[in-house]
């Protein structure tokens, strides 16, 4: 009971755990400031140039939108590596519609993209939730199946800038009330993040995601709909990839079957993990993941500004993932030792 001394001791330890968990998000901020500081040391006007701010801001929407879904997947102890292919599929199909049906409504186009993504995500979710195929195997398979579909559907042809509606491209160029450096795509990402927060915090479905990741067996025995929830997180991730496909077309003005979204899973998983999501499931926060996206975006732009070759970026992401996971593992081990002696 809570009155015995050893329990008190354990509770005190769990206070430390809570403090460390908060420290976790603070840690990202500290890391972010360190990156900025280092960059400013070499380029004193780094943050003063609107173009740099804009670059960072433009870099995050794609990442944030997909990372919100990936975070939910990882909280349930899953993983989805097919995100880049789903993004490309939605982008290419909607791009073809824009190309072949001039004047097609861009909002309807975006909706179609989201639905296509949801469909692909539903296939992942169905295989994982009901056929019990391990997430990594399922999504590795669909990673290449969906990429293959992209080539088949597009016949290997790129969607060129002149086929992407100007109105769509403006999403990345203009913001509301004429504020140029906060484009609409950034607002879309913020809205998605806010919705993800509301969903995870204020719905039973959102809470079930945490329950499943924390203790799957207990979740089943306590009547949490494990299969439906698992299915849903992959479906949501697919839908968000669909949206990201549209944002991609808006941001870059093209969709290329062999390039768009390739390797994107690495960046997204990096952002999610750096954002403090437990790779073993059960915990993760929207704020943390958002900060993770911001950090990766800043590193990316800083590398470019400092003149580091873009070939280095991949290695840097990989390194950042390993660093985050290692720091996490060490903290957890110390914590476990402090609370249970194990």
């Amino acid at each position, binding site marked *: *009971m809570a009155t015995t001394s050893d*329990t008190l001791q354990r509770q005190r330890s769990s206070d430390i755990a809570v403090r460390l968990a908060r420290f976790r998000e603070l840690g990202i901020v500290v890391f972010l400031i360190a990156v900025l500081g280092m960059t400013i040391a070499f380029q004193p006007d780094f943050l003063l140039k609107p173009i740099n701010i804009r670059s960072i801001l433009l870099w995050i929407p794609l990442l944030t939108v997909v990372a919100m879904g990936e975070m939910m997947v990882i909280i349930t102890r899953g993983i989805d590596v097919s995100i880049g292919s789903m993004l490309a599929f939605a982008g290419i199909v909607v791009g073809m519609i824009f190309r072949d049906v001039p004047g097609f409504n861009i909002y309807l186009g975006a909706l179609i993209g989201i639905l296509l993504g949801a469909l692909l995500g539903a296939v992942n979710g169905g295989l994982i939730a009901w056929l019990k195929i391990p997430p990594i195997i399922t999504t590795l398979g669909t990673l290449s199946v969906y990429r293959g579909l992209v080539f088949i559907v597009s016949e290997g042809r790129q969607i060129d800038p002149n086929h992407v509606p100007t109105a769509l491209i403006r999403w990345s160029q203009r913001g509301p009330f004429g504020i140029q450096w906060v484009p609409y795509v950034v607002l879309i990402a913020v809205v998605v993040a806010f919705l993800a927060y509301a969903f995870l915090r204020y719905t039973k479905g959102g809470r079930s995601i*945490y329950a499943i990741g924390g203790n799957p067996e207990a*979740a089943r025995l*306590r009547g*949490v709909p494990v299969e439906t929830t698992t299915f849903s997180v992959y479906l949501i991730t697919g839908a968000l990839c669909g949206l990201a496909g549209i944002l991609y077309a808006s941001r870059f003005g093209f969709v290329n079957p062999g390039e768009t979204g390739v390797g994107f899973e690495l960046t997204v998983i990096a952002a999610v993990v750096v954002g403090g999501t437990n790779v073993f499931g059960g915990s993760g926060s929207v704020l943390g993941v958002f900060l993770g996206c911001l950090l990766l975006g800043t590193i990316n732009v800083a590398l470019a500004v400092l003149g580091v070759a873009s070939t280095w970026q991949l290695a840097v992401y990989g390194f950042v993932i390993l660093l985050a996971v290692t720091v996490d593992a060490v903290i957890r081990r110390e914590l476990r030792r402090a609370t249970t*002696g194990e």
Partner: protein
Amino acid sequence: MTDNLPVLTTHGIYMAFGGVNVLKDIDFEIYPGEIHGLVGENGAGKSTLLKNIAGVHVPKAGEIRLNGKVVQVPNPHAATDLQIALIHQEPLTFPDLDVAENIFIGRQPMSSGLSRLDWATMYSRSAEILNSLGVKLDPRAKVRGLSIADQQMVEMAGALSQDAKILLMDEPTAALTPSEVKDLFAIMRLLRDRGTAIVFISHRLEEVFEICDRITVLRDGELIDQRIVGEVSVDEIIQMMVGRPLSTLFEKGDTEEFGEPVLEVEGLMRTLKFENITFNIRAGEIVGMAGLIGAGRTDVARALFGTLEIDSGTIRIDGQRVEIGRPRDALKHGIIYVPEDRKQNGLLMPMSVIKNMTLAVLERLSRNGWLRESLEEEAAQEYVKKLNIVLRDPSQPVRELSGGNQQKVVLSRWLMTKPKVMLLDEPTRGIDIGAKAEVHRLMSELAAQGIAILMISSELPEILAMSDRIIVMREGRISGRFDKDEATAESVIAAAAGQFLQEG
């Protein structure tokens, strides 16, 4: 006790796992406002019966009636709807969620209007429920880091939040300290007085006699008898549980002379696990290690085998100080460890008996770095004969063997390494009486050959019958030491439960 109608009855429940009947024709009844003890040996079917009532398993035949009406309980959710709650031995909690959410998971209160989860109500209702149980827990605290006892309280609060009328408790006290047990009992009495029907499983009969109004005895899947506490003695209950006179346990004979100390442990300490552990085992001696679950016995064994790092203390083998950082070191010094959970830690279930046996001595059975299967087979055959292992063929998978024979396969593996010290963790848990006696006979033989044996056991009769000396652990410390002839069931229990501290 009340003389009104039973709240729940089962009629002719049958349940089978893999063709083996684990419950046979069970007619069981529980009354509102009673605490009903369910006792029996390991494998008697106690947990299975509760799981059948709670919808975790579905019985093969038979029916369950709630207030006289036949009900279907196809899954745990249905049980919840019928106000039946199962409290598991290992609390089923969500470590990353807070206390309140653990109580309400799946049934969180929603606010009206913009339908969203109502955290404020959830916290205030959690606080109310915890208060009514007299538990001081913060509804906002994360469950990670709470003690087992507190986690159990969270689960109980969860049961109450859904107005459970029937509370099924599967060994809730197994991992609790005595003072925690006392607190749990207070809450159980409180609930009983409010009219809740409680079924309580425990292996500790003194607890059952203390808290229960009635006792049901199961043996080998059959309901033997249902008796009222006060009209039955502990001995009678034990008689019903084992179905035979008590004295059929194998007893290790007296050994006149022991050799030199083989294993000497001094001041072993590991933060939050155990401290000041000092003892020795002489050649040919069996030292029994008694204590409650969670007292730290397994951790001491793990430390001696190198799977748990120690913070301080010394270990000597044959008088030489040794460092044991990993199992390899232990094996090098002739220490072997046979873990409690054979399936998880000991045996490779799908692999053959031969492969399982030779795992630790592959080098010896190789020539020029290549494994010689003929040597493997020879070695395995030798031990099959020596240990009297019943099997069809040594190349059949271990999975197909009975529990007792599986245990002998594990023992064979380690015996092949010609050990000096054997650490046996619950060597006869979950195996039947006949096999038990054989494992005991084998242990005596091994001791007679000069091996020093540490036997961890939670079964008092086994401790008393097999040990030359007894060490009792309690909450990470040695709380009692007894020689074979001075140890009694009462004195060992007292030391384990901490009623009388006696340092030896």
